[in-house]
């Protein structure tokens, strides 16, 4: 059963916040500070990952390369959600070939609803 969210963000508070929000609703959270750590976690837990929350701006990480690498590690049906504070979130998602976005700052209910909707749809 896929019940894990992989959050890739260089901001430790954001990673912690995602855990605080999702763990009470039964979602396990794996946190990575950059693309390299994310790939290791994705490889280790590829069968249980429900979705990936990916920040756009991270030191040492090219988001496009990170997306391509994650696609090779995960099932193609696993959605990657672009989670960024950029003003042009939709454009950046389009550049990366992603359909789902979550603009910072976000309501925690939006995050909960997004995760639950994806979990129920599977």
């Amino acid at each position, binding site marked *: 059963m896929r019940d894990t969210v992989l959050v890739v963000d*260089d*901001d430790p508070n954001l990673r912690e916040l995602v855990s605080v929000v999702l763990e009470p609703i039964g979602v396990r959270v794996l946190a990575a500070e950059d693309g390299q750590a994310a790939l290791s976690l994705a490889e280790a837990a590829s069968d249980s990952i429900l979705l990936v929350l990916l920040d756009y701006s991270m030191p*040492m990480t090219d988001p496009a390369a990170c997306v391509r690498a994650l696609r090779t590690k995960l099932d193609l049906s696993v959605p990657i959600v672009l989670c960024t*504070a950029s003003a042009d979130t939709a454009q950046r998602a389009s550049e990366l070939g992603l359909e789902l976005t979550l603009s910072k700052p976000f309501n*925690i209910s939006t995050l909960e609803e997004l995760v639950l909707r994806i979990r129920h749809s599977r």
Partner: protein
Amino acid sequence: MTMRHISVRRRLALLVVVEVFTVLLLVGVGAVWLHKLDSDLYYVRRWVLQPVDEIGAPLERAIGLGLALEREPIPAEQVRADAEALRSFAVRYKTVWMLAGNTSPDAARFKAQLSDQGRLGLIDEEARVVAALQGALDRLASTPPPLLAEPPAHRDAAEVLDSFGALLRWNMAFEDVATKAVGQHARQARYWLAGTGILAVLLAGLSALGVQKAIAPRIARLVTKVRRFQERGVNERMLDEGRDEIAILSNALDAGFASIATRNQAREQFLAVAAHELKTPVTSIMGFAQAALAHPENEAVRTRGLAVIGQQSARLSRLIDDLLLAARARLDEKKFQPQPTDIVALVQSVGGEVEASMAGRRLIRYELPLAAPLLADPALLSHALWSLITYAAVISSDAEPILVRVAAALPCHRVEVCAHGPMLSAEDIDHACSPFGTVSYEGGPGVHIGVGLFFCREIARVHGGLLRIGEGRVGPAFTLEVPSLRGDDARHRAGGR
């Protein structure tokens, strides 16, 4: 040398020269023809109208003499007196106006006109008439008294009358010739003036057209360029390869607009990065506040949430202050309020604040002396330190702490902040220190990690110090140098303010 290499000033001067030349040409041709026509008029008056006028009086006298001789015999003295008077006129006519044998310029000109009109025979006719007139007058003047109204005198008087009549007709014919010649000159003058006028207009027009063609389209392009830049902020590159004033202006404008466009782009990028930087703590604040409210029963979440909100609020406040400082630095409006300060204490305080904002991570390693006094604006200096330490922390990997080292010395204290990561390129450093600077780190294209170090450099400058960015042992090193003070200096300078 092409047209575009001639300066506009010289080109306009050339145009003025051409215009003046054409006007002078027109005036010159007009003056020549006016002189010619004036000469014609003088000539007509002198050679045509005057003899015609003067023939009238002797002609009347000859007619009177003839009529008197027909009516009754008259005294020989009267005949001789009339004949003498008429002979005097005939002599004057022969001397002044008769063409045959006359070598004056006016006579030569008249002969040429007669020749042009095929009437040279008039010259011989005139000479013959004058000779006949003189013969008849000679005979009348020698008439012995008493004169009778008899055939010889009648014949001579009739011949005198005929001769005067012939002279009058001949002069009328000459008037006709002269009038035609003047008319021809007048026509020629019109043609010349019209031709010269057309030539002048063409010359002036073509010159003006050349100047207009060389200048106007380029000025129009400049105006379009300026309008488009004003309306849309778009700089359309327009390289003018000439060397005249317009080319200089155009290329200067192009460079200026390009610079403004680059600056505008940098400003927009700066604002985007600033917004991104501001949203990061706001996300944590908002998220933890909502989580705490959603789980009021969960004491751990509430406590942690409040802690994060506190830390991130402080970070947000710093960021906002940074932006305000950066704006004031750009506007040169910041206030410098120095007081005795210990930079070691300031470094520790700011370092703790940064660590707290980074989720309480222990990310700074210190190498500090006991104290390092200086005269500084603690608010400004703490902002510079906060920005440098945050900057270094963000570009360093989580696993490695950054090193903050203070070297207390005279004449300058040195604060060195050493990051742990790849070096910044010279281009990145220049860009980071520009007024709207942001930095793209090596880890990925377009990854912005901060709003730049411009205001740090400005803060160092107002303290009489400087900011160096160089290479440390394991990554970029930021060194802030500020003038130091001995304790008594500090007290003295602070008391003097």
